[in-house]
């Protein structure tokens, strides 16, 4: 049962999605049908499809994972992603629909007919879509391992193959209905999961409803004399003490079995705290907590409340609680939550990663500061502002979101569908806070991959909910990736080959090129999804937002609101936006970590480029437009 149900639901889901695609295949013969679903989608359906398109793996897997490990800081993404829809509704929705045809390049170029805009806007669409594709594909790989027991790369290849089929058979029509179905299911089952969480309540010894015994970690006192540590339990002897940053770790031996302990000294009191650890030998062999890694021997799932409003043990168990009480108890200053951090050590030829417990007061969990150090250096605070700006301005500049405006019949429908999207997405983002905190306090956080927090939380309620949530999460990836590939197809076939290169001869050819592009982009996405395995997907999407906000938003806003905007200004702005945002990302501390380099040596100290690249792109547009105004007039007169 435990293995058949997830697989059966997954297969059913994929079969349904492919069935929808083949059913609508006949409607995608014309360019209008393929790229814009004939402009005939009802605004209500489009609104939920917007949610299905937008609530990507980053939202579902990444945000919940980040909240599960960094508390409120993960919720900042929810706030920023939702706030971005205000820009989309009040500034962009109706003008985009009025001016555009199939792609956002159409709208940008509507008043200019400039080859430069066509080329650069299409390139920008491709770059942003690829940046956004990476985290979706990583998310796909993350899901199939627990769901189907398959390796990460198999999940990535499966998503690639299914999405290529969806897009290549019925283009925007099938993509719309897949997104609609997935958006609806995601909302329904996330709500069910959160309600189940309220019924379970909070406990300092979470046991997943009696399914998994709570794992108690040991702490023992020790004495330290002339630099020698002696554990209170004399069965243990200290083999060595190593430092990682400001933390110390002791390797202990008991009956010839070794283990790593976190060593801390406070006010003359020395303590050893049990940890979990992995060690990779020179020959590539991996041990987990001292035994060879296997399907059965994995790092234990973690995360629990140490105190609930000052209480522990049975006295602390709340039973069923309401949504406000749930948050109030977690955020109480008398509450504390055990989070886990990691430290890297080199022990002879072994590379050791030690995971150790950290107690964090509840009032620090439910306010920003654990990931973004708001009381830290000015640079860290600038990084926070930069992220919030990029999230706010990025949504209305995402090509795969903007093309949804061309699937409805008129500007009023575009507006109404945006409002449905805000309602659906807003509800979902409120749920992310509960799901993330539920994972954080429910003992279901995977130490090596927090992206799995929401599905693992669902698993703590039984196989059915886990299977549904996992299948929906997989559909989440399918829906978003389909939208991204359609956007990329439009950029290549419509913007580049038809309008820029003028090599497309007829409607049929344009659809054919779009389908071929879907294959190529899908293949590239598969490769990138395998390369970027293990990186938090929300972080990656945050970067895609920064690129979109830098490359596209200044042009869209200025084209709509500043009459002196020229085609040269728009072209230069897009170019500067792409180069500056990607350049800043490539040399950022986080990317340096990914390269395996010391993050402190990164030449750019910011992780989020928006605060530099967005204003730079605006300024470029203004300056170049002012310098080329005369040129444009002369050209127009000629």
């Amino acid at each position, binding site marked *: 049962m435990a293995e058949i149900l997830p697989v059966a639901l997954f297969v059913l889901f994929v079969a349904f999605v492919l069935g929808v695609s083949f059913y609508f295949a006949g409607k995608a013969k014309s360019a*209008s049908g393929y790229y814009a679903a*004939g402009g005939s989608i009802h605004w209500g359906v489009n609104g939920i499809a917007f949610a299905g398109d937008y609530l990507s793996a980053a939202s579902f897997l990444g945000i919940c994972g980040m909240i599960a490990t960094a508390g409120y800081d993960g919720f900042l993404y929810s706030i920023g992603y939702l706030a971005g829809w205000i820009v989309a509704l009040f500034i962009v929705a109706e003008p985009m629909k*009025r001016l555009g045809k199939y792609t956002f390049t159409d709208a940008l170029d509507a008043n200019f007919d400039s080859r430069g805009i066509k080329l650069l806007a299409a390139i920008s669409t491709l770059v942003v879509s690829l940046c956004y594709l990476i985290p979706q594909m990583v998310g796909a790989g993350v899901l199939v391992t627990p769901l189907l027991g398959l390796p990460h790369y198999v999940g990535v290849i499966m998503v690639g193959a299914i999405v290529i089929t969806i897009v290549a058979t019925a283009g925007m029509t099938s993509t719309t209905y897949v997104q609609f179905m997935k958006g609806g299911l995601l909302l329904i089952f996330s709500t069910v999961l959160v309600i189940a969480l309220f019924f379970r309540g909070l406990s300092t010894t979470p046991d997943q409803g009696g399914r998994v015994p709570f794992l108690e970690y040991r702490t023992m006192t020790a004495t330290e004399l002339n630099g020698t540590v002696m554990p209170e339990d004399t069965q243990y002897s200290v083999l060595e003490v190593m430092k990682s940053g400001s933390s110390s770790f002791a390797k202990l031996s008991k009956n010839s079995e070794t283990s790593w302990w976190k060593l801390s000294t406070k006010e003359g009191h020395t303590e050893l705290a049990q940890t979990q650890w992995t060690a990779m030998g020179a020959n590539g062999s991996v041990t987990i907590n001292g035994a060879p890694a296997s399907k059965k021997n994995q790092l234990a799932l973690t995360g629990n409340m140490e105190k609930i409003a000052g209480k522990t043990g049975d006295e602390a168990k709340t039973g069923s609680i309401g949504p406000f009480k749930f948050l109030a108890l977690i955020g109480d*200053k008398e509450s504390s939550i055990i989070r886990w951090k990691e430290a890297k050590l080199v022990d002879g030829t072994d590379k050791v990663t030690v995971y150790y417990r950290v107690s964090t007061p509840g009032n*620090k969990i439910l306010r920003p500061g654990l990931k973004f150090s708001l009381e830290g250096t000015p640079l860290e605070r600038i990084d926070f502002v930069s992220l*919030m700006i990029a999230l706010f301005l990025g949504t209305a500049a995402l090509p795969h979101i903007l093309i949804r405006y*061309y699937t409805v019949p008129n500007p009023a429908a575009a507006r109404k569908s945006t409002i449905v999207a805000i309602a659906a997405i807003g509800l979902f*983002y409120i749920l992310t*806070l509960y799901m993330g905190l539920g994972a954080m306090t429910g003992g279901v956080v995977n130490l090596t991959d927090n992206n799995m927090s929401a599905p693992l939380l669902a698993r703590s309620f039984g196989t059915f909910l886990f299977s549904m949530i996992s299948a929906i999460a997989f559909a989440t990836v399918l829906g978003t990736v389909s939208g991204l590939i359609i956007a990329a197809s439009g950029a290549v076939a419509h913007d580049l080959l038809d309008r820029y290169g003028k090599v497309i001869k007829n409607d049929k050819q344009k659809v054919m090129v779009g389908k071929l592009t879907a294959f190529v982009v899908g293949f590239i996405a598969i490769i990138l999804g395998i390369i970027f395995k293990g990186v938090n997907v929300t972080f990656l999407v945050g970067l895609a937002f920064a690129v979109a906000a830098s490359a596209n938003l200044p042009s869209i806003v200025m084209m709509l*609101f500043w009459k002196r905007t020229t085609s040269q200004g728009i072209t230069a702005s897009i170019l500067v936006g792409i180069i500056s945002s990607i350049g800043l990302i490539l040399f950022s501390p986080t990317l340096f970590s990914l390269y395996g380099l010391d993050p402190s040596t990164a030449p750019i100290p910011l992780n989020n480029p928006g605060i530099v690249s967005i204003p730079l792109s605006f300024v470029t547009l203004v300056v170049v437009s002012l310098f080329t105004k005369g040129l444009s007039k002369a050209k127009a007169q000629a």
Partner: protein
Amino acid sequence: MLHEPAAQSGKDPAFAYKRALGTKMFWAYAIFYIGFIVINLLKPVLMEATVVAGLNLAVVYGFALIIIALILALIYNQACSKREAELSKTEGA
């Protein structure tokens, strides 16, 4: 070539009104959003303060940013739809 719209939309007499209203509402929300960032930057400890029903300012402000977005969106749609109906009546007459 082939640069035809997916769906034709006619002239919109309410366009100027909607644009002006949208811009005003955008700035109203943007100020509220900036307020959230500014509090976090200047006095992050304030976010810990309990505001209502045991919830701290961070949670209340965060939820408010989401809920107010929806309320503004509904007001905007109501105003736009009303103006569109009025103008289409006037034009029809």
